[in-house]
């Protein structure tokens, strides 16, 4: 019989795991909810995503408890779950949807269908317009816009969360912004009146 001094790496008291989990996740829970809402645009998907996220964080506790700041780890998990949800939605919609010719409205495939009537009523016109525009982005683009432009994470931080090279992220940011501008901003003047951009200013 061999005696080994510790079994602790294989043994976890459920009670301890639970209280540690609550203590460490609680301070981030509200911001994670906000991010999830900005990604999905509606309450029911947000709640699904958050429940799924907490479950994953609980199961993967050993991967992040030692981190000084686990927030990026949380955001990466949220991002991955959101990508899954987005792809699943698109597949489902693709399978059921015979009106492919209306596909220039991809937001119908994403979250707009999930918005409850109450939420829709409460949204202002501007809010509706914004949600529709965001629904035109694909999941990677939207995550980038949400984290960088809405929540103020730096591009290197987002690069770490999305596991992408900074250069890729920069061109994606440019593309996403152009998409959004086209949808959100009415030209204040007919574009023909403006000077063509032949000069680039000292850059």
């Amino acid at each position, binding site marked *: 019989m061999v005696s080994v001094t510790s079994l602790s790496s*294989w*043994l976890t008291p459920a009670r301890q795991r639970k209280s540690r989990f609550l203590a460490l996740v609680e301070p981030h829970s509200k911001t994670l909810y906000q991010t999830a809402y900005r990604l999905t645009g509606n309450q029911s998907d947000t709640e699904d995503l958050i429940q799924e996220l907490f479950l994953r964080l609980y199961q993967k506790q050993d991967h992040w408890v030692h981190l000084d700041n686990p927030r990026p780890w949380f955001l990466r998990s949220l991002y991955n779950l959101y990508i899954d949800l987005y792809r699943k939605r698109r597949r489902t919609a693709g399978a059921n949807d015979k009106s492919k010719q209306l596909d220039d409205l991809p937001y119908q495939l994403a979250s707009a269908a999930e918005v409850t009537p109450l939420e829709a009523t409460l949204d202002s016109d501007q809010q509706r317009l914004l949600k529709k525009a965001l629904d035109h982005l694909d999941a990677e683009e939207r995550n980038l*816009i949400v984290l960088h432009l809405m929540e103020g994470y730096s591009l290197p931080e987002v690069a770490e969360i999305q596991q992408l090279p900074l250069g890729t992220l920069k061109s994606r940011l440019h593309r996403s912004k152009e998409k959004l501008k086209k949808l959100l*901003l009415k030209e204040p003047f007919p574009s023909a009146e403006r000077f063509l951009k032949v000069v680039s200013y000292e850059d």
Partner: protein
Amino acid sequence: MQCIDAQRQLQSLDLDQQPSALVAEHLRHCNQCHDFYEDFRLRLHLESFAVPEPDPGFLQQAMKQAGQRQHRASLGHRAWTAAVAASLLVALLLVGRWQLPEAPSPKTAMQLQPQATSEQQLKEVRILIVSDQDYQDAHIQVALHEDLQLRGYDQQKNLSWRTPLKEGQNLLTLPIQIGQKGGQLEVTSRLGMHTHSLQLPLARGEQPSG
């Protein structure tokens, strides 16, 4: 009009305000300010995104549910099944002075959510140890019969540990290498006179029955 003045004025506008005629005239001819104004308005739009408060109690509830592992993954059980598939099975071992007649028989190995997993030889076997109180010094013994090995303890067939146990559920996850013939895993807890043990038949590839 200077760009700096135009941009200062533009920054004071909100989304439903129009720039003054003077600024508008400048914008017509200045691409730099035009771009600045577009970026600025895009930012205003994005900042206007209103996130409603979560339903009262939702976050607490969701965190607790994750801890209780009762929550079924709403995106199609994927996370849940993945977690279960990663482990071979869950067995129950009681520790302590359980005397109530309705307490489950300590010899019973309860198999939850059996999952036929891959051909992998290494399986994580989870054993739920339910303890009647905190113990500083519980004695846990693992015996590997026939073609089983504990990863990291090659060739050792009997191992024992002294370990603290918390009251309630403790999850013991053992990485077991299952050879061609499979074998029996025996886990025993001992506290003074009180001994409980369970036996689990482990086979490669498919699950033992019952």
